[in-house]
């Protein structure tokens, strides 16, 4: 059981690392937000389960559950507010086509 907890902690850290690499490598803001959303959701859940097993007290498990629920509620709200705010002020053009503003079905 101890090894299982360690594996979960390492998996969570690996997902955080993947998020960091993606934030460096991706080209525009929304791709970066997609990569950055890995760290606060699945990585945190894996690390929290691992730590709850490793610590093994009811207090720690309750607190970690509260942390995960709070993060899962707040992270999409923050990402939505940020993307909505920045969407109004920039155009994301891939191959000179802004797919969020151009309507492909309007003109025959």
């Amino acid at each position: 059981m101890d090894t299982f907890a360690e594996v979960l902690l390492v998996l969570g850290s690996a997902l955080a690392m993947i998020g960091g690499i993606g934030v460096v490598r991706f080209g525009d803001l929304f791709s970066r937000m997609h990569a950055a959303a890995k760290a606060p959701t699945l990585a945190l859940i894996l690390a929290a389960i691992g730590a709850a097993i490793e610590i093994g007290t009811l207090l720690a498990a309750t607190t970690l559950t509260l942390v995960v629920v709070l993060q899962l509620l707040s992270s999409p709200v923050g990402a939505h507010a940020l993307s909505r705010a920045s969407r109004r002020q920039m155009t994301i053009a891939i191959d000179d086509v802004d797919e969020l503003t151009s309507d492909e079905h309007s003109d025959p």
Partner: protein
Amino acid sequence: MNIVAVVMLTIGAAGFVYRLLRGPSLPDRVVGLDGLLSVIVIGIIVAAARSSNGGITVETVLVAVFVGFVGTTALARFIERRGN
């Protein structure tokens, strides 16, 4: 095995810090700041898993998560009003 987790978290935090310092626009920096805080949260959890009083150490994570949410939302409102 714990040192593997710490090394991975360091690489991830370096990526977010790079985006925080070099992001072309303000929303890129907000993405870097938010991600860096969540990496710090995971780091605290990994550290608390090994400490003797981990049940108390873990409670600091609650505050960090809430501060991160308030910061991201406030910066988003700021960007919406001001532009990048």
